[in-house]
């Protein structure tokens, strides 16, 4: 699981001058490759990871061109289509939840909204929240983790205590509570975007200790390494050592853990929406659709299966890609 000290990685990123000369003279065939190139080669060979990456890119494209897609293949996400619903039962007409040429993923029970459009818009919500909250966690985690590891002393004790405390905190409970007491619209945004921002901040905030711990540990071991000592003896100040010497060496674990925290965030966002404290109706989110399906899944299972399957596929894709990335960046992990 863990990315040990980046001994081998470091050597590959900054080959010493001697080594480079030797390579140039003697072995022409062997070209020096950077860590980036090596990892990229390994990643390309990993077919499962590439598959995950392709699905992720497809989802991002779908989220970006959502309005266009819906114009071509769907209907506005909040438009009611009562003609598609059996008036006595409230269930979609036709087989498989009203699946048809016009409604390619069927319609919702009772009001007949187009499920395809809602899934596509839901992808926007899911990906926005997952990515931005992961960036927030990473930013806070790197900031506090590096400060704790580099400065040591009381800064380290305070930050470590806060991290331990946050990890021992009933997080889901608290997130639900926090989101539910905040007003529906804030800072002049409409309800959809202000809730999105709240979700990003809450999920991102509770995620940082995971990355913070790893960054702190890595920083602690990097701090004692010769190249840091060398840099210091050349007169480099702390900011330069932190950002130019140590941060590049932390890039690999940071990248991997950011990728692996995204699927967790997707599940948390969907859970919050499922519990009714996520994106408010009528705006679509996958978790919210599952929650709507609670009343109907006995009679119209498709309404539950489609958003559930989307969550599954998306999370799986990120997990596959993240695992592949880790293996590519850290040869010892296998």
């Amino acid at each position: 699981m863990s990315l040990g000290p980046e001994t081998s990685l470091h050597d590959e990123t900054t080959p010493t001058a001697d080594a480079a000369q030797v390579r140039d003279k003697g072995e022409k065939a062997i070209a020096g490759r950077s860590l980036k190139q090596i990892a990229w080669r390994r990643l390309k060979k990993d077919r499962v990871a590439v598959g995950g990456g392709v699905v992720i890119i497809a989802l991002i494209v779908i989220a970006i061109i959502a309005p266009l897609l819906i114009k071509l293949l769907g209907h506005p996400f909040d438009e009611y289509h009562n003609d598609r619903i059996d008036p006595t039962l409230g269930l979609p007409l036709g087989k498989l939840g009203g699946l048809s040429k016009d409604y390619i993923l069927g319609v919702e029970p009772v009001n007949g909204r187009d499920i395809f459009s809602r899934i596509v818009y839901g992808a926007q919500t899911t990906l926005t929240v997952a990515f931005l909250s992961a960036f927030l966690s990473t930013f806070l985690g790197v900031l506090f983790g590096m400060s704790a590891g580099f400065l040591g002393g009381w800064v380290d004790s305070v930050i470590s205590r806060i991290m331990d405390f946050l990890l021992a905190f009933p997080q889901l409970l608290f997130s639900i509570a926090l989101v539910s007491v905040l007003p529906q619209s804030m800072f002049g945004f409409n309800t959809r975007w202000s809730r999105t921002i709240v979700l990003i901040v809450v999920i991102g905030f509770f995620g940082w200790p995971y990355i913070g711990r790893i960054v702190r540990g890595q920083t602690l071991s990097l701090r004692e390494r010769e190249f840091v000592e060398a840099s210091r003896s050349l007169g480099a100040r702390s900011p330069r050592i932190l950002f130019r010497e140590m941060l590049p060496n932390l890039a690999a674990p940071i990248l991997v853990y950011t990728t692996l925290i995204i699927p967790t965030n997707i599940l948390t966002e969907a859970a919050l929406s499922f519990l009714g404290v996520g994106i408010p109706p009528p705006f679509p989110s996958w978790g919210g659709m599952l929650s709507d399906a609670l009343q109907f899944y006995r009679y119209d299972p498709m309404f539950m299966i489609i958003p559930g399957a989307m969550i599954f596929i998306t999370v799986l894709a990120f997990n596959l890609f993240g695992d592949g990335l880790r293996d590519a960046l850290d040869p010892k992990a296998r």
Partner: protein
Amino acid sequence: MLAYLIRRLLNAVVTLLVVTLVTFGVFFLVPKATGSDPALLYIGKQADPVAVEGIRTKLGLNDPIIVQYGKFVKGIVAGRDYANGPDVTHCSAPCLGYTFKTNQEVWPILIKALPVTISLAIGAAVLWVLMGILFGVISALRRGSVWDRGVMTVALAGVSLPIYFTGLLALTIFVYGLDWLPNPEYTPFVDNPAKWFSGLILPWVTLAFLFAATYARLTRANMLETLGEDYIRTARAKGLRESTVIGKHGLRSGLTPLVTVFGLDLGALLGGAILTEAVFNLRGLGYWALNGIRTNDLPTILGVTLFAAFFIVIMNLIVDLLYGVIDPRVRLG
């Protein structure tokens, strides 16, 4: 050892105080900032101002937040009186206050919900530990085989599935579709063990599947790392039987890291399996947490948060103590 224990217990109490203080702060400050009034929540929006003021005095809502918090803590330890002139309500220790909406004592509600959550969590934990470790170890021993790849594929799918989806799928298939199982519900074990079991088996299996996936992956990774160690080679070279090498030398250090994860998972689950309880409609701590949040009921939310933090802190403590026993390298003190 005793000094260590006392220090850890003090630490646990401090953590609980901080958790409740943070919760308290959030639920008092945020409503203030957004202009909603707990007294109005308690009595209803159409109440006349005199009655609202009376409630405010009785619940002590006019006091500064830190005084209110002090009274809350005192209520847990020694009980408290809610007084508005001659109108006195006594709430005996441990007192978590009264629900805003239904005016019931919070403590008995949560104590009644506790067995539901405990049954759910323990039953699932037994299943997921057994399945996770078994599959993980076999995968590690048969690395690269069809079995290994199959198990790891299922496990990867398992960690990517949320309970609010698998739970609904399981209900659709096994309860409503095939009619193999009754609708999940909680029956106390002492009333009817068979019904207790059949009512909880579906939630157990569903929940355990997701955790077992994580544990199988972890076990496999840890075992592979351990089996590559020099001392395993030494053990083999000494001529020990393979079962002893794996069972005695391998498992012990391969499974040690799992203890930490297990403690955290079980602790978190005991504080309320919010999602599972919501999906299967079980009235445990998680149900009441959600209920409290939906009705803006601060005393309930505080109560459940306290229970949840309590379990996490206690499980952490147990794990650390266990480490001293199972890992000879760790010395407590």
